[in-house]
C-alpha cells in the first residue's frame, strides 16, 4: 500500500524581526470591534499572531466595576502588545498617548503611531506623522508607523529611524483590498526596515496579495472582527499570510499573453 510522502519543510524562512525581536508569525492583529473578550481571544489564537494591537483609553472609574479586562485574554507574557495612537489627530495627542502606553506597559517601547488627518477617510496626516515619529524615535520608542501608500513619505519615515513602516492598503476598516500595489512594491523595494500593510485588507486573498508583493507582514483588525465568523476568518488570514509569503519566496512564473501547453507535444500518437 502506498504511504503518503512525509511532509518536510520546503524552505526555512527568516523570521520577521522588529526592533531586534524575532517573530515567526507575519500576521499582526487588532483587538477592536469584537463581540466580547472571549471572541477576541479565540480569533487571536486562530490567527497565530504574536503582536497584538490595543488602544489606550480612559479607565472605567467605578461606573462599571466588573468590566472585563482585555489584558486578561492577551497576557503580556504571551504576546507582544502594540499600543496604538488611534483617534489622535495631533502630534501632541499621539506623543502623549505613547508615553502613557509606555508607563502602562512597564517601559515597553514598541508603539504603533498613527496621526489621523480626516474623519471620513481616516487617512494619515503625513506631516504630523513625520513630526511625531521624530519626537518618539528621539525619546527611545520603537515606532511602527501607519502611513499612506506614498513611497517618498515611507522612505522619510524609514530614514527617521522608525522600526517598521506600515502603508495602508486602503482606508481603515474599508475592506477594499490593496488599491495601489505598485506603490506598495516601490515602498518595499526602497525599504531598510520591515514594511507591513496596515489597514484596508478585506479578505484572505488581499492578505495573500500583500505578502506576494513582498511585504514583511500584515496588520489587520476589521477584516477579521467584522467577518460573520471572525474565528474562521482569523484562521483563513493566517493561511493566506503564510501562503502569500511562500509564493513570494518561491518566485512566481512570468505572466504570458498566450498559452503554453503543460503536456509535451512530442510522442503524440495521432
Amino acid at each position, binding site marked *: 500500500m502506498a504511504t503518503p510522502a512525509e511532509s518536510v519543510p520546503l524552505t526555512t524562512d527568516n523570521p520577521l524581526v522588529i526592533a531586534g525581536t524575532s517573530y515567526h508569525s507575519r500576521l499582526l492583529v487588532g483587538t*477592536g470591534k469584537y463581540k466580547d473578550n472571549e471572541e477576541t481571544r479565540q480569533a487571536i489564537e486562530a490567527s497565530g499572531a504574536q503582536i497584538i*494591537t490595543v488602544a*489606550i*483609553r480612559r479607565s472605567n472609574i467605578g461606573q462599571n*466595576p466588573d468590566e472585563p479586562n*482585555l489584558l486578561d485574554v492577551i497576557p503580556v507574557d504571551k504576546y507582544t*502588545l502594540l499600543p496604538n495612537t*488611534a483617534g489622535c489627530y495631533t502630534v501632541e495627542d499621539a506623543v502623549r498617548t505613547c508615553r502613557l502606553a509606555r*508607563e*502602562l506597559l512597564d517601559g515597553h517601547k514598541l508603539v504603533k503611531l498613527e496621526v489621523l488627518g480626516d474623519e471620513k477617510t481616516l487617512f494619515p496626516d503625513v506631516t504630523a506623522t513625520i513630526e511625531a515619529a521624530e519626537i518618539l524615535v528621539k525619546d527611545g520608542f520603537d515606532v511602527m508607523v501607519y502611513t499612506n501608500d506614498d513611497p517618498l513619505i515611507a522612505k522619510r519615515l524609514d530614514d527617521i529611524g522608525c522600526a517598521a513602516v506600515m502603508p495602508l492598503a486602503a482606508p481603515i476598516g474599508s475592506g477594499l483590498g490593496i488599491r495601489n500595489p505598485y506603490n506598495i512594491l516601490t515602498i518595499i523595494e526602497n525599504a531598510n526596515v520591515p514594511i507591513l500593510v496596515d489597514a484596508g485588507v478585506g479578505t484572505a486573498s488581499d492578505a495573500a496579495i500583500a505578502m506576494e508583493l513582498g511585504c514583511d507582514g500584515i496588520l489587520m483588525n476589521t477584516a477579521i472582527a467584522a467577518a460573520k465568523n471572525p474565528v474562521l476568518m482569523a484562521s483563513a488570514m493566517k493561511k493566506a499570510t503564510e501562503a502569500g509569503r511562500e509564493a513570494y519566496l518561491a518566485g512566481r512564473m512570468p505572466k504570458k499573453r498566450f498559452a503554453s501547453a503543460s503536456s509535451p507535444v512530442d510522442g503524440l500518437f495521432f
Partner: protein
Amino acid sequence: MNITVNGENRSLDPEASLGQLLEMLGLNGKRIAVEVNRDIVPRSDYEHFKLSENDTIEIVNAIGGG
C-alpha cells in the same frame, strides 16, 4: 478638595494621595497609567503623591483597538 478625574468632578479629603484616590475608585493593582496635570506619575509614586485642589487626573488602560 475638588479634583477632576477622567473628566468627572470628584471630592476628596484634603491631602489625599493618588494611591488613596485609586483605592477609592477600585483601581489599586489594576494595569493603568496615570497623569496628574498632564505629567505621568510612575506607578511606584502613587502612594506618596499628594493631590492638590483642582488637579486634573487622567487614568487610562488598554482596550480593544486596531
